[in-house]
């Protein structure tokens, strides 16, 4: 059996590829209603290397979007277009676009008006909001993002061609 596979690796590769495809497909739809144990330490630990465990997960992104409205992010940032606060759907990130940097903005706040939400929003929820925020400007995989949105959206194809300010002025 094994010798045959060694001679013709095609079927094995195909099977392996299908399995990998299936695994990633499941990841897009997986729903974790509570982190176990319910302390969020494991989420934070997984996120430290700059990777958001919720990114690309359709359910988490949809939850992040719900929290974005429930916790009144829309009050200042609107649905990404910005208002009192900066726009979130463009390619400019004042404090960095890495998940950990975005999470830090939410958890600890930023100067000129962004309040800290540490102890007010549970940490898994913060990371779900981060996943939604990054999907807003097309940074996250589009397979995890709902196509049904009632408000304005960034055109995913037309991404980061936006002119950036020259380095000298920053």
């Amino acid at each position, binding site marked *: 059996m094994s010798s045959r596979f060694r001679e013709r690796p095609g079927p094995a590769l195909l099977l392996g590829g299908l399995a990998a495809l299936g695994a990633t497909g499941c990841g897009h739809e997986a729903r974790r209603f509570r982190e176990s144990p319910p302390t969020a330490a494991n989420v934070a630990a997984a996120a430290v290397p700059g990777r958001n465990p919720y990114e690309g997960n359709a359910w988490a992104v949809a939850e992040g979007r719900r929290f974005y409205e*429930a916790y009144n992010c829309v009050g200042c940032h609107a649905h990404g277009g910005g208002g009192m606060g900066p726009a979130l759907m463009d390619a400019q990130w004042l404090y960095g676009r890495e998940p950990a940097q975005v999470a830090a903005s939410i958890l600890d706040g930023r100067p000129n008006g962004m309040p800290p939400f540490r102890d007010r929003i549970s940490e*898994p929820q913060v990371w779900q909001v981060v996943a939604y925020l990054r999907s807003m400007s097309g940074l996250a995989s589009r397979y995890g993002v709902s196509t049904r949105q009632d408000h304005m959206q960034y055109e995913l194809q037309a991404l980061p061609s936006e002119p950036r300010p020259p380095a000298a002025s920053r």
Partner: protein
Amino acid sequence: MTGWLQSVLETAGPQAGRLLPLWRFMLVVSVLVFALVIGTLLWAVFRRRRGEPPSERRMTRTVVVATALTVIVLFVFLVLDFAVGRALARPPRPGPVVIVTGHQWWWEIEYDDSLPQRRVRTANEVHVPVGQPVVFRLQSADVIHSFWVPSLGGKMDQIPGRENRLWLQADTPGVYGGSCAEFCGHQHAKMSLVVVAEPPEKFARWYDAQLAPAAAPADSSAARGQRVFVEGRCAMCHAVEGTPAGSNVGPVLTHLAGRLTLGAGALPNNRGNLAAWVVDPQRIKPAARMPPSPLPPADLEALLDYLETLR
């Protein structure tokens, strides 16, 4: 949940009272028709074949008679259904108006009043005066739900973007259970509400008590609990009138301790269940919108002390 009446067959008001005879009549007729059809089928299967098949004409006559009987029975149903539906369409006299908004997976309750300061907001529990028709204005905040209190009347869908109206009346004091009757997601089965029917003067007392804001915490532990509530996560979704907590995402908790259930009928309301619910609602009601809140024990005890003062 047990402990209260939730049955189509045990009625407590004119709506359900008029529906029950119709239901019984339809049951009896349907059973008779079923017995007749199955009996005829068995007779046709087991009878001895004898001689010539019956003439074409006799068969045609049998089919016509059976079809005519079916049409007549269905027409009788239609007329009776129409008559009962029409008799129940409008409340006989004006009464309280309650706006019930379905959420995944709880009920937002608001008593309508022309004076804004006389509007009562609560959740998952409707109090009604006995002997008065109560008009329910049924709405939904997310998906289609259906409002159904079987002992008081029929069900009515709650559809996003429009309003349906239903009136119910309770003739005997008591607690009547209700459920969501349209599949609405993970916790559809644990989306219940209770209707508490009480004499008009007792209802008026309840109503005035609900209008009052939450009392200031009496002891230091409750005061600490209030700080945990207002400065922590709770206030991000829940409102308590009389405090800065004013979010409208989750159920309003101003008079939480006076309610019979927690989590829209998921648990009886007592201190132990409340603690379990606050710390980890996802174990009790997976997918419910409330996140786990791993509070330090001292904060949790203080919070429970505070929530128990919200009568």
